[in-house]
C-alpha cells in the first residue's frame, strides 16, 4: 500500500443486496419494486403462516394491511417519515424481515389484550419492572419481542439440562471439537458421546418448545419456526 493511502474499510455488501435494492427502489416509488413488495405481503401463504401461529384470519388481514401501509407511509409521532421498509438492511430475506415484523406486532397485540396472561420471563423477574422488552440482551433490538422469547427459552432450556452434557454440546457445536476428541478427553467410548449429544439435542428441543409454550400459550411456534427465527436473529443483529 502506498504511503498515506488508507486501507479499504468499506463495509461488506449486505447478504441479500438484491432484495435491499428492491426495497430501496420501492421506497423511491419505482412501480415494479413496489409491486414486488406488495406481492410478498399479499402472499396467502404468509397469512396462513401467521394464522397457523395463533392469529385469527381477521387479525392476519388487519396486521398485514397495517404492514403494507407502514412499509411505505409510516410516520413517527413527531410527524417525521419513518417508513418500515426503510429499516430493512438486506441482512436477511425481505420476506423473513416482514414476517418477523408482523409476528412481533401479533405478539405485542396479544400481550396487550386484556384476556391474555403471559407468564413472567426471567428478565421480568430479574429487573422487577415487569417488561420483557426492558432487558433485551445487548446486540438485540429492544423492540423485537420475538428475540426476547427466543433468548429466554434458550437460556431456561440450557440451564435445565445436565450440565456435563451441556459442556460436551458446547465443545462440539460452539468450538467444533470432534466427538472423537471429546470421547478421548472424557475417557468415554465414542458411541457414549454420540448418544449423550443426540439425547441432549432432543432434550433441548423439547425443553425450548416447552418454554415457549409456557411463556405464551397462544403463540403456536413450531420448532422449525424457532430455528428460522434464531437464524434470522444472527443475520439481523450481526453487528
Amino acid at each position, binding site marked *: 500500500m502506498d504511503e498515506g493511502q488508507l486501507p479499504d474499510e468499506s463495509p461488506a455488501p449486505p447478504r441479500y443486496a438484491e432484495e435491499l435494492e428492491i426495497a430501496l427502489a420501492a421506497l423511491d416509488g419505482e412501480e415494479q419494486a413496489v409491486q414486488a413488495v406488495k406481492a410478498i405481503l399479499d402472499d396467502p401463504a404468509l397469512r396462513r403462516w401467521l394464522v397457523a401461529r395463533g392469529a385469527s384470519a381477521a387479525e392476519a388481514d388487519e396486521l398485514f394491511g397495517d404492514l403494507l401501509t407502514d412499509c411505505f407511509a409510516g410516520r413517527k409521532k413527531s410527524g417525521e417519515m419513518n417508513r418500515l421498509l426503510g429499516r430493512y438492511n438486506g441482512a436477511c*430475506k425481505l420476506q*423473513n424481515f416482514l414476517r418477523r415484523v408482523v409476528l412481533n406486532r401479533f405478539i405485542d397485540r396479544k400481550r396487550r389484550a386484556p384476556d391474555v396472561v403471559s407468564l413472567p420471563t426471567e*428478565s421480568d423477574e430479574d429487573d422487577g419492572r415487569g417488561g420483557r422488552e426492558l*432487558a433485551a*440482551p*445487548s*446486540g*438485540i433490538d429492544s423492540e423485537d419481542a420475538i*428475540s426476547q422469547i*427466543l*433468548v429466554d427459552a*434458550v*437460556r431456561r432450556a*440450557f*440451564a435445565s439440562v445436565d*450440565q*456435563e452434557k*451441556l*459442556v460436551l*454440546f*458446547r*465443545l462440539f*457445536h*460452539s*468450538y*467444533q*471439537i*470432534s466427538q*472423537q*476428541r471429546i470421547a*478421548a*478427553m*472424557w*475417557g468415554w467410548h465414542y458411541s457414549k458421546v454420540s448418544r449423550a*449429544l*443426540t439425547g441432549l*439435542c*432432543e432434550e*433441548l*428441543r423439547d425443553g*425450548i418448545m416447552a418454554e415457549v409454550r409456557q411463556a405464551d400459550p397462544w403463540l403456536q411456534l413450531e*420448532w*422449525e419456526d*424457532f*430455528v*428460522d427465527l*434464531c*437464524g434470522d*436473529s*444472527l443475520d439481523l*443483529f450481526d453487528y
Partner: protein
Amino acid sequence: MNQPNSIEASLRVVATFFDKFGAPVEGHAREDLTREQRSQIERLAAGDLSDEERETIVPLLIRNEAAIELLAATVPGDR
C-alpha cells in the same frame, strides 16, 4: 429459507444463537483462571482427569467462558 434438515443441524443454529445472545446475559463471565484451574483443564484436555475430578470442573466450564475456551484450545487438534 434454509431449513436445517436434522435436529443436530438445527441445534447448531440454536447453539450459535445462545453463544451470541444467551451466554452474555446468562452470566458466562470471562474471568482469569487460577494456575490450578488451568492445570486441571490441561489435564482434562489430555484425558487425564478421573470422573470425580471432571465433575468438579464442570461448573467452572459452564460459568466461565475462558475455561471452556482454554479447554477447546488445549485439546489436541483435529479441527
